[in-house]
């Protein structure tokens, strides 16, 4: 195993182990004890398995999971940031339909393989985005009557 996946495995299993330890600590210290009986059982097994996995990662004996190479991370980063901004701020701040439309168009622009220099491909992206917005509005506002936050436009 090369250094990058090994480090990644140590970090990933370390985070899981830390969560396991925190869950076990809370389960065994919080009251009323009866409410935490089942969490105590689970967290005990959770901690044992998580520490086992962490130990294997530290020793470099993890055999499953390829981790993420640098190129994949670079590819993911812009899309993930846009998606997180949509969910944790824009959807509520700008309104669901406005935010989703903007995010949809940004994602198409970021990941669509069609060249950015062609006017035709930009027109295609705008048409697809408008079509998507119309379908989503029809489905959720029209058919399902879901009342989403509508801040600035609709």
């Amino acid at each position, binding site marked *: 195993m090369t250094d990058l996946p090994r480090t990644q*495995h140590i970090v*990933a299993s370390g985070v*899981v182990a830390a*969560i396991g330890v925190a*869950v076990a600590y*809370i389960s065994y210290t*919080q009251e009323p004890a*009866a*409410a*935490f*009986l*089942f*969490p105590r*059982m*689970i967290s005990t*097994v*959770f901690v044992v*398995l*998580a520490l086992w*996995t962490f130990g*294997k990662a530290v020793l470099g004996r*993890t*055999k*499953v*999971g*390829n*981790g*993420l190479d640098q190129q994949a991370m670079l*590819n*993911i980063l*812009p*899309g*993930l940031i846009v*998606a*997180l901004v*949509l*969910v*944790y701020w824009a*959807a*509520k701040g700008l309104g*669901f339909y406005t935010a*989703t439309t903007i*995010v*949809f168009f940004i*994602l*198409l622009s*970021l*990941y*669509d*393989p069609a060249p950015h220099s062609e006017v035709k491909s930009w027109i295609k992206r705008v048409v697809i985005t408008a079509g*998507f917005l119309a379908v*989503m509005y029809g*489905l*959720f506002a029209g*058919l*399902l009557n*879901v*009342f*989403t*936050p509508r801040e600035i436009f609709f």
Partner: protein
Amino acid sequence: MEFLAYFGDVFAPINFGLLLLGTIGGLILGATPGLSPTMAVALLIPFTFRLEPAQGLILLGAAYTSTVAGGAVSAILLKIPGAPANIATTLDGHTMAQKGQGARALQLSFLASAVGGVFGVLLLIFLTPVLAKWALAFGPSHLFWLAILGVTVIGSLDSSSVVKGLLSGCIGLWLATIGFDDIMGAQRFIFHSSVSGGINVIPALIGLFAIPQVITMFAKGRVSLDAEVLTVEKHPIRDAFREVFRRSRALSIGTITGSVIGLIPGVGGQIAGLVAYDQSKKMSPEREKFGTGHSEGVIAAESANNAMVGPSLVPLLTLSIPGSPTAAVLLGGLLIHGIFPGSDLFDNNPDVAWTFINSMLIGQILMCIFGLYVAGLAAKVAQVPNAVMAAIVLGLAVFGSYSVQNSMGDVYVMMALGTGMYFLERFGFSAAPLVLGLILGPIAEANFIQGSMIANATSNVGQYFFTGPLNVGLIAIVVASVAYSIWMELRSRRYTTKDDAVRKEEALS
């Protein structure tokens, strides 16, 4: 034969319309690489809120059935399995298409899927009531062990690492405890207001299945789908009919293998297809033709992955224990409509249960009929660029999660779980046991508490949970499944995760 009394309900105009919609939509969704049946069903759940329970289930059941079959279209015409269940179909199906026999391969795959699917649903029809009566004998201790069994079996068999599979199950069980305790009303692990009412299963399912797929599409970057769609020449359907039944060995191996594998909790469709393909090859006198565009390969693989669908719902409908991730999603769909599966489902809601099951039977036939006509369109949809697909799935996931209870908290939870799951999957963890843990956690805990109370009043906890033939039998299965998986892992002869299965497929091709 009680199911016959509810057969007419399937043909009520709205029900039949939904069945058609689910079947055709499912075929198209199934053909789209990256949209697994589980994810398709999870994304469809919000659309069932305004429907009657039976109608919602008809839509979900039809989508489940036809997404599994629809995956064969892209497997045959594009050499990209629409779902992991169709990996084995690629081996011979695409070679047939390259030889100009694409139509024949598609016809054989849909006919074999229908035969396997009908057999699987008949098994569901006849086994479910029997097992439901038997399930009446289950007490809290048995249901507790059954819930644990569901998590451990899927955790050990569906993951490439037993420890990480079981750990994923533990994470799911822990997530299920977040919120207020049912008995004492105590707050547990409420670290953010979004989870104060616990983690809602539907947004969690959408996040766990849809968001990792979206991020996987991001990871590919700005790439176009290079797959070439092979043209489909006309082929007489009558000849395909004759061929499917002439190849009865492959058909029966596929159907029986798929049905048996479907009954085992945690073993997915991709395994059914690959095992049936392998067995059919071993038992065929023309085994050297496998991999070179042999129709038996397509028939065995496709009959198996659809035969698995019906039996995979038996544990869900009889014991409320979903045996597969898709069954877990269907359980979410049932619970949203106030339907609690289990031993008394057929007494309390026979109309819903039987209409749903009957619709799956009719859905198999419709899937076969429409599959042949929708195949061309589905192959075009399968070429939708990753960027468009990722943006559509993200949009549907956000709107779908919000629509469950008009809560932004659900959207936050969906995104957090989905993003976390993507990274966990990259390190060998698996979504299936985590989902099963999340769904079965409350069942396990409720029965554990109930069992403890009974034990305190009658005997002691150890005696109540660890003695009796049923308890011992269930514990033995838990131990056996973990031991078997460890043994298999040590022998390094398994390819049960999606990534591993794809790698296996690439190696085979």
